[in-house]
């Protein structure tokens, strides 16, 4: 396992996270936080940035330590690495970004259990060196961020009639979408959109997400 595979081009690594293997809409990973925080664009954006940073740092550090740890204990070590970066994020946000922390503090701690992060470490960081891991982590993190922002915008606009907390509609068109059940409807609708785009492009993606992992 020690020799590196040739990494795919940077554009492929970035696009894979954004579209083909989008963590939320293609792989259907970490749906729970995706539903919980996307009641407003701002919350989605802030948690998205936190996940992006943790994903990039975890992927890179996973790649760094893979030669010095025995593969038998890679899962506990990966969990530990994610926990380090999540705790670090938590402390830094609480100390220097108090307003943001008040909104997303509860969810930042939960990043430690996000399936997408450990799955990228296991599938990508174990086989590649640090620099491709940075791009892969960035792509996956961006995919998650874009997903949260999309869902947040849809739900805030329809459920509260506002965007970024600024009222754009004088009424609430569909209160249901901002409630937890509406979160699932929203994710499902955007998932359908992703599948529709895929069919329009000639149905190149493997069914149910997953597939090629580099």
């Amino acid at each position, binding site marked *: 396992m020690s020799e590196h595979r040739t990494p795919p081009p940077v554009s492929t690594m970035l696009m894979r996270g954004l579209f083909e293997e989008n963590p939320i809409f293609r792989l259907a990973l970490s749906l729970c936080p995706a539903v919980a925080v996307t009641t407003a664009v701002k919350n989605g954006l802030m948690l998205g940035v936190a996940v992006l940073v943790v994903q990039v740092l975890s992927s890179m550090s996973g790649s760094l330590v893979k030669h010095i740890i025995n593969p*038998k204990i890679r899962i506990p070590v990966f969990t530990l690495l994610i926990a380090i970066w999540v705790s670090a994020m938590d402390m830094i946000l609480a*100390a220097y970004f108090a307003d943001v922390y008040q909104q997303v503090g509860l969810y930042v701690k939960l990043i430690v259990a996000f399936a997408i992060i450990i799955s990228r470490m296991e599938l990508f960081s174990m086989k590649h060196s640090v620099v491709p891991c940075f791009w892969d982590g960035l792509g996956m993190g961006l995919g998650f961020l874009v997903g949260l922002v999309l869902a947040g915008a849809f739900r805030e606009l329809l459920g509260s009639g506002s965007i970024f907390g600024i009222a754009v509609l004088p009424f609430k068109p569909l209160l249901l979408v901002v409630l937890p059940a509406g979160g699932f409807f929203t994710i499902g609708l955007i998932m359908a959109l992703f599948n529709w785009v895929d069919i329009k492009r000639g149905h190149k993606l493997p069914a149910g997400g997953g597939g090629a992992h580099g």
Partner: protein
Amino acid sequence: MTCIPGKPVVDQAPPSAREMMIIAIGLTAVCLVAAMILGGLYFFTQPAKEHNLHMREEAMIRGLLGLTPQARIQEVRRYLKREGKDVQVIYLTGKKLAQLELDGKEVAALDVPNDVAIAGAAEIKDEWVKTQVKVSNPEHLKYAGRFFVGIEGTQPVGYVVEGVTLGFKTWIRFFMAIDSAFTIQGVEIIEHEEDPGLGAEIVQRYFKNQFAGRSFEDIEKISVTKDPLPKEWQLALEQLGDMPFRPWLEKHREMLPKNPNIYAITGSTISSTAVTVGIKTALGNFRKRMNIVGNYL
């Protein structure tokens, strides 16, 4: 270990002593580095974190009471001591640590050292109280709530009481500002987990400001109504916060008797009632307690 269908699973050889050593050393190394990173970060960020929390509370209290920048805020913490059937109430004010019977009879009163009185962190105060109050089991002394006194010069000008009430799902924590005649000056929701778009509307001015300007007697008989919120009253409620409490009350005083009850948020009667009941209880308790603790401020 490979697992091929139809073939028996091959037992994995137990790791050799050398392999086990490498695993142990690898895990230890990763944990050590982790501990160092986190320890360092904690050391640098913790003071900032506590400072933020303290500043946020202080800014909220100053805003609610409309204090001048020279004014001082004194925290008063309340503890309960239980030894069998014997229950005592303990108040830690800026000057005294008062140990009282439930009916208000003084058991003991100690002077509070200055460094404890002005300490920002709650832990410092709680630790000091634990060293002063004798209990057979540390579990028998419990923190039971707090309020703040706004002091201009040497004169108390108002109080902010922290209260909790059971909301739709879990606790709603709020600050309630009161003047010395027990009239409510404002309410601020600190923490809640009500549903967004429904119960979460309790943080909006058009709901929380409905309590402002009400006297103790008003609050005692206040109830929640499902009538629609009159437009004129809503506009008035939205102004409190942009303008201080006193001028706001002068401007809109005649509207209070016209709107004697709290208008519930549409679709969130439970959250609206929860806050109203919480305010009622907190104000009633505070008045009873002030009769006693007022002597020790």
